[in-house]
């Protein structure tokens, strides 16, 4: 009897467990989807793990943006050559003072479920995103609109915000300042299907309620596995979209993504580790594109007040060697505006380097000279500096530590977990902080605004002591302020050149490298656009049959 009971209990335990398993979703990874049944053109794309948030309201991170801009399209979007061009707006005009932008919305605009899409949808969507109760995260590019920030903080009514539907097909946007790159910004102004978004808090979990207006639309969502899309037949430019299915596969580990690319489960791999670089770097499947981001070191100018010491530390950094040590495929940085930002038809970087010369480079003799000039020959008399970084960035930190040791500057590396790092950074209780930034639009301002004066103050108005607040900083701020009102492009760009000269002449930051993005694309796939922001667009892609 007891034996029987024991057996029964054991069986009950196993059964209880199996019952729990039966409801397992019968989802599949990418491979079966990617079979390309009946000659379908299928992109199996992977760019690392699933982004935290999967909708445009709560997302604030780059990783989701690649999904977002393949399923949503704004007033403008990036054309096949990566430059912003009109999309849902087919015409626009700007007032003489550069403040009022009038867009004509395409007559044939539709949502991905076939519903008509007009200018009032655009206005209502913007109101929803800016409404304080919505708690939308990605608002940084919406504040170009007049009074948008005020409305978001509950300080004015919607009537005062410069984003209005004049009639069904005319949208008028009033900007806070003249903005030379406003068409780039408009790429991010997308409409939301408010009937579902407002009434169904779970809309983003369900393909039926995830209604969009981009070249692709969602057909299946499997959390933590994939996000599966098909061509949107209601897209205004649907005839030109050649890809039938676009599947986003989530893979946490670079080594696994590599194996999935090798065995063909995915055909576009966007999160490459050293292994992929080593195997594919010399093949035609390997593509490299510059992204408008810079990695730099922020120096606590109160702790290291002597500009000669700061400059010596910059001269001591052999950026090529550093990239070899960390096995990264980026570009050594000699300034703060990265490649990918244009000055007319040319790269801003190249023109600026011609004008002000290269400002940051490796010259160890010069570094030593500057140190002794400052009264610290071979680093004697200097304290040991504290260098903070994320715990994933220690390889670079150690290489830098070694390079500075060559001139007698000693640093202690203090690594932090990434979820704590920026809080520690805010305390300013360090001497050198690892830092980086990727811009949002094709203009030097997208990077140079980081050191404007207003950013160097705490909420109560007191200056942040770690940051840059001396006379050069004021001059820098004056130059940048001029760029906001200057409408002549040549003069404006020259102001940026001057500003860059001022900041690197005082070296409150040490540029390390400009970002490069690398991507693997299987032969036969053409037209994949890797934008200057690092997003991947498949609207223009095609697969040779």
């Amino acid at each position, binding site marked *: 009897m*007891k*034996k029987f*009971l*024991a057996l029964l*209990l054991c069986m*009950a*335990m196993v059964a209880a*467990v*199996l019952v*729990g*398993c*039966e*409801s*397992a*979703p*019968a989802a*599949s*990874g990418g*491979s*079966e989807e990617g079979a390309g049944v009946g000659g379908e053109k299928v992109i199996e794309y992977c760019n690392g793990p699933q982004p*935290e*948030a*999967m*909708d445009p309201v*709560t997302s*604030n991170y780059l990783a989701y943006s690649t999904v977002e801009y393949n399923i949503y399209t704004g007033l403008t979007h990036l054309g096949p050559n990566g430059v912003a061009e009109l999309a849902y707006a087919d015409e626009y005009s700007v007032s003489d003072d550069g403040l009022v932008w009038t867009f004509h919305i395409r007559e044939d605009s539709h949502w991905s479920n076939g519903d008509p899409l007009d200018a009032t949808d655009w206005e209502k969507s913007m109101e929803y995103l800016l409404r*304080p109760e919505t708690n939308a*995260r990605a*608002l*940084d590019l919406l504040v170009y609109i007049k009074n948008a920030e005020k409305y*978001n*903080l509950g300080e004015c009514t919607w009537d005062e915000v410069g984003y209005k539907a004049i009639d069904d097909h005319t949208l008028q946007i009033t900007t806070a300042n003249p903005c030379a790159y406003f068409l780039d910004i408009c790429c991010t102004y997308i409409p939301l299907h408010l009937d579902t978004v407002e009434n169904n808090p*779970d809309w*983003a*979990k369900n393909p039926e309620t995830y209604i969009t207006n981009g070249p692709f639309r969602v057909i299946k969502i*499997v*959390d*933590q*596995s994939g996000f599966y899309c098909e061509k949107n037949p209601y897209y205004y430019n649907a005839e030109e979209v050649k890809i039938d299915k676009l599947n986003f596969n989530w*893979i*946490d*580990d670079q*080594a*696994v993504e590599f*194996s*999935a690319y090798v*065995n*063909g*489960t995915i055909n576009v791999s966007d999160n490459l580790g050293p292994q992929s670089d080593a195997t594919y770097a010399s093949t035609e499947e390997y593509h490299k594109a510059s992204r408008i981001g810079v990695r730099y070191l922020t120096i606590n100018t109160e702790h290291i007040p002597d500009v000669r010491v700061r400059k010596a530390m910059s001269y001591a950094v052999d950026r090529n060697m550093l990239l070899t040590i960390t096995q990264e495929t980026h570009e050594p940085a000699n300034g703060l505006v990265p490649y990918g930002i244009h000055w007319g038809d040319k790269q801003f970087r190249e023109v600026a380097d011609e004008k002000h010369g290269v400002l940051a480079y490796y010259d160890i003799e010069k570094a030593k000279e500057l140190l002794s000039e400052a009264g610290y020959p071979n680093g004697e008399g200097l304290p040991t500096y504290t260098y903070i970084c994320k715990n994933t960035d220690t390889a670079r930190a150690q290489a830098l530590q070694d390079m500075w040791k060559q001139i007698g500057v000693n640093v202690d590396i203090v690594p932090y*977990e990434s*979820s*704590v790092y*920026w*809080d520690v*950074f*805010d305390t300013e209780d360090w001497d050198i902080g690892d830092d980086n*930034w990727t811009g949002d639009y094709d203009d030097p301002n997208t990077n140079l605004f*980081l050191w404007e004066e207003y*950013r160097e103050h705490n*909420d109560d108005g007191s200056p942040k002591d770690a940051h840059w607040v001396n006379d050069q900083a004021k001059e820098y701020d004056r130059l940048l302020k001029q760029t906001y009102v200057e409408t002549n492009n040549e003069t404006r760009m020259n102001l940026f050149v001057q500003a860059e000269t001022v900041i690197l002449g005082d070296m409150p930051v040490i540029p390390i490298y400009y970002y490069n993005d690398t991507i693997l694309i299987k032969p036969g796939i053409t037209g994949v656009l890797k934008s200057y922001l690092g997003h991947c667009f498949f609207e223009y892609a095609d697969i040779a049959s």
Partner: protein
Amino acid sequence: MSRYIVKRLAAAFISMFFLITITFFLMHAIPGGPFSAGERKNLNPKIVEAIRARYGLDQPVWKQYVNYISKLIQGDMGVSYKKTNYTVNELLATGFPVSGQVGILAIVVALILGIPLGIISALKRGSLADMGAMVIATIGISIPTFVIALLLMYVFCMKWPVLPSYGWGGIKYLILPVFCMSLSPMANVTRLTRSSMLEVSRQEYIKTARSKGLPEGVVIFKHMLKNALLPVITYIGPLVAALMTGSFAIERLFMLPGMGRYFVNAVSDRDYTVIMGMTIFYGAFVMLCTLLVDIAYAFIDPRVRITR
């Protein structure tokens, strides 16, 4: 018996209360939080404040604790701070079936392979078979599962691509993860079975059984194995809980949408509600499995008496 169970359940509730309280305050004591401002350089600090206020993170910790407990009693574990569209209950409901399925299969494989290996090596002690089984067991314990997983992935997904390297769906997606997860428990089961078989075989009653002239098969399976399996059963309780709630390394490598990944990612993301939900679930599950094993133990081994 029923008194014993009631007592155990009461103890479990008290342990659960301490588990929840300690985890809650420890979690808030570690630096960092779910909404760290600096990451987004051009985000207005006022907006960050508004987001924190929406989730009640601007209140003192004790108040957050009271709020949490009162919601928890109603069965609401809150929404994830990071996966903003998901409630913790939803994450558990989707994650556990996946982890559970892989875990239970791994246990079955571990037992099916581990027990016979242990028996063989105990009976043929010192032989080639014994040494072979022990080599397998040592490898299973000493090599980390993610190393084995990457190795298997290299062989079966790249060199000889017969299995998918990641994903979730049919049986073929289960083969590699289940095998990797079963390796270490299998090694432990083999060693446990072997040592307790050896111990049992020295007992007087085995000699008696043999001298009675019983066939060797009956001696082994009826007299030796029945007693030798007791330590294995003790081991299975916590093992079931550990394997069925998912392995972070395996779930991350094979991209299984299970609980293990949520758990570890939640800790590094400071996703407070998910950390709490996963801890509570894991704690309750461990308690349940241990209780079931203890009860089963009492039935199998009459020497263990639970009622006084």
